[in-house]
């Protein structure tokens, strides 16, 4: 008899959730569900609490007879008290006598509740919250009550998860696209990256970033905020901005990470993140880097096998009060490939990290030249079935071959000058120039470019073209061309600019036409640096 009644009650419950799913907003649905649970089980109160994104705290979302719980936004740590225990164990919990039990939430006692029964909200075996009921008189909840409440909890969990994912999907996509960086453009440098959210989320705490430093070098960062979902993503966004700001201020990588660790502790004490930050000139030179507990990037010099950068152990950001992050450096060959990644790309359940790292190394070694294709290949091999519970990110950078005749167009902006000097220095080095040839010619070319930027264009955007080629006389000619109309040079330093071009090269020729101006700088190579 009793079980027939129970079956009828269960049908009531199902009908309300099925019908409600179609039209009620989430809050309305939860309230209806709680009313029905109270009626079916014959209890005085009921409440639904949901886990916060990082799964450490329960927040009340709807309540009947316990409305204060929602209004006061009580925060219940997972593992503490009654509801916290339900969430931590993922199993129903019965309490016969509230007065003698371990209760965290004071409102339960304030309301004079005697007995409690709680059940976890489970989605694919994962706890997303707690449904609990209470009585003002003592009641010994039996197994049938427990089963009924668990069924109600399952229905609620299904409804909540579909509603949340629907609503959050749009938000998550918008947030994610705004947090992914627009990669900078450098002459003859290729950059590509991917962000793959965890299978259960649309967004998470992994990020990468690439930006231009004032001296023309490239800042490359990748990191992983511990935690999941929106909350981790919001912290990630703040760390990403903080890292850029500290980097643009001229701090060394170690200094950037020390400041970032302080920032993270200020944003949220107890939260940790791993990050690696590199300052690189892809056209060759010293690579500077520092790591806060992050897995080491791969480096592949042209014609060599990829290898892991050597980094001694270090603590994650936020883990200790005053962390020291050591600056490391090593020589980077022109055209070397750098691959930064988060553990979500290489970690696989039940396997040591080395297995994933070896697979990544092999994939990079055998992969496509073109970085976008290489990224696709890495995703296919490393995550053939997509991401699991963790999100994944990676970023690649490599300078391209320059060729015998090198031509590049750059925006007519001051910031282009350091970029132009770096790529020209590499071309000259590959053309057999001495350090003194390189110093003098790049400075002369920078002066010509500064002239073009200052005088060829008004406020409208324009471009400056660099062309470097060997000439018949065994020297080189570097041409700087603009496509604007010159106004009369102003100020004395432009006069000095021409003086420097003439003093640092063998020949300066200026060609003006309606289409623009070209300055050709020629010089024989092989001049050794003065003592």
């Amino acid at each position: 008899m009793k079980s027939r009644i129970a079956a009828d009650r269960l049908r009531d419950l199902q009908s309300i959730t099925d019908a409600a799913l179609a039209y009620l907003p989430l809050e309305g649905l939860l309230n209806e569900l709680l009313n029905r649970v109270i009626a079916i089980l014959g209890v005085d109160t009921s409440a639904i609490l949901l886990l916060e994104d990082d799964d450490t705290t329960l927040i009340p979302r709807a309540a009947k007879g316990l409305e204060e719980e929602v209004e006061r936004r009580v925060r219940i740590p997972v593992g503490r008290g009654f509801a916290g225990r339900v969430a931590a164990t993922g199993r129903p919990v019965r309490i016969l006598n509230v007065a003698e039990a371990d209760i965290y939430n004071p409102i339960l006692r304030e309301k004079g509740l005697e007995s409690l029964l709680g059940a976890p909200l489970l989605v694919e075996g994962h706890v997303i919250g707690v449904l609990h009921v209470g009585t003002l008189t003592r009641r010994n909840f039996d197994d049938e009550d427990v089963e009924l409440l668990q069924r109600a909890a399952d229905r609620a969990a299904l409804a909540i998860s579909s509603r949340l994912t629907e609503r959050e999907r749009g938000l998550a996509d918008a947030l994610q696209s705004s947090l992914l960086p627009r990669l900078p453009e450098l002459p003859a440098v290729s950059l590509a990256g991917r962000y793959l959210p965890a299978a259960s989320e649309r967004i998470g705490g992994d990020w990468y970033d690439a930006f231009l430093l004032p001296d023309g070098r490239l800042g490359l960062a990748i990191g992983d905020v511990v935690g999941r979902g929106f909350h981790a993503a919001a912290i990630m966004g703040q760390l990403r901005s903080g890292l850029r700001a500290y980097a643009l201020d001229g701090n060394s990588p170690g200094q950037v990470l020390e400041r970032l660790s302080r920032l993270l502790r200020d944003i949220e004490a107890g939260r940790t993140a791993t990050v690696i930050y590199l300052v690189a000139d892809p056209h060759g030179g010293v690579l500077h880097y520092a790591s806060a507990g992050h897995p080491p990037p791969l480096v592949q010099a042209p014609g060599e096998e990829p290898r892991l950068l050597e980094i001694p152990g270090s603590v994650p950001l936020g883990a200790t009060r005053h962390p020291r992050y050591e600056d490391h450096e090593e020589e980077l060959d022109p055209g070397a490939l750098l691959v930064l990644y988060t553990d979500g790309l290489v970690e696989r359940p039940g396997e040591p990290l080395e297995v994933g790292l070896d697979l990544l190394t092999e994939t990079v070694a055998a992969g496509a030249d073109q970085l976008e294709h290489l990224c696709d290949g890495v995703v296919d091999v490393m995550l053939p079935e997509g991401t699991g519970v963790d999100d994944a990110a990676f970023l690649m950078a490599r300078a391209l071959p320059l060729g015998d005749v090198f031509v590049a167009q750059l925006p007519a902006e001051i910031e282009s000058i350091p970029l132009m000097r770096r790529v020209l220095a590499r071309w000259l080095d590959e053309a057999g120039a001495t350090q003194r040839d390189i110093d003098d010619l790049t400075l002369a070319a920078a002066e010509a470019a500064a002239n073009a930027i200052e005088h060829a264009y008004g406020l409208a955007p324009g471009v400056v073209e660099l062309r470097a080629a060997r000439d018949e006389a065994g020297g080189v000619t570097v041409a700087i061309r603009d496509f604007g109309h010159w106004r009369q040079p102003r100020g004395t330093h432009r006069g000095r600019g021409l003086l420097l071009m003439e003093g640092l090269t063998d020949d300066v020729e200026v060609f003006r036409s309606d289409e623009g101006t070209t300055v050709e700088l020629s010089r024989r190579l092989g001049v050794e640096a003065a003592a």
Partner: protein
Amino acid sequence: MTSRAQASVDYHDAVGVVKLTGEVDIVAAHDLRDRLLGAVRNEDLGLVVDLTDASYIDSVGVSLLFELAEKLTERQLRLAVVLPDGGLVARVLGIVNLGSVVEVEPSVDEAVATLHGA
């Protein structure tokens, strides 16, 4: 190629010494101008700009030194530049003949002594 210019200021016996490191160029000039002009105290005899560890200087950086020399002269103060022999910076400053308007010395001590009229 080193990083962008940094300026540090120190004072030796009524003479400000600004040490410039890195690239004294069109990108850094705006910030450096403020640092250089701000380093001159009213009671000082003059200013020393130490370019020993500067790796690069372009025409905008050069103009900054000429402007500084002019401003100091107007106030009856003197400018000395510390410059080691050889290297790109010395070549550039030679081409523009910076020595015609400022004292060029091989060390900070000698530059300070020069400003003291020793």
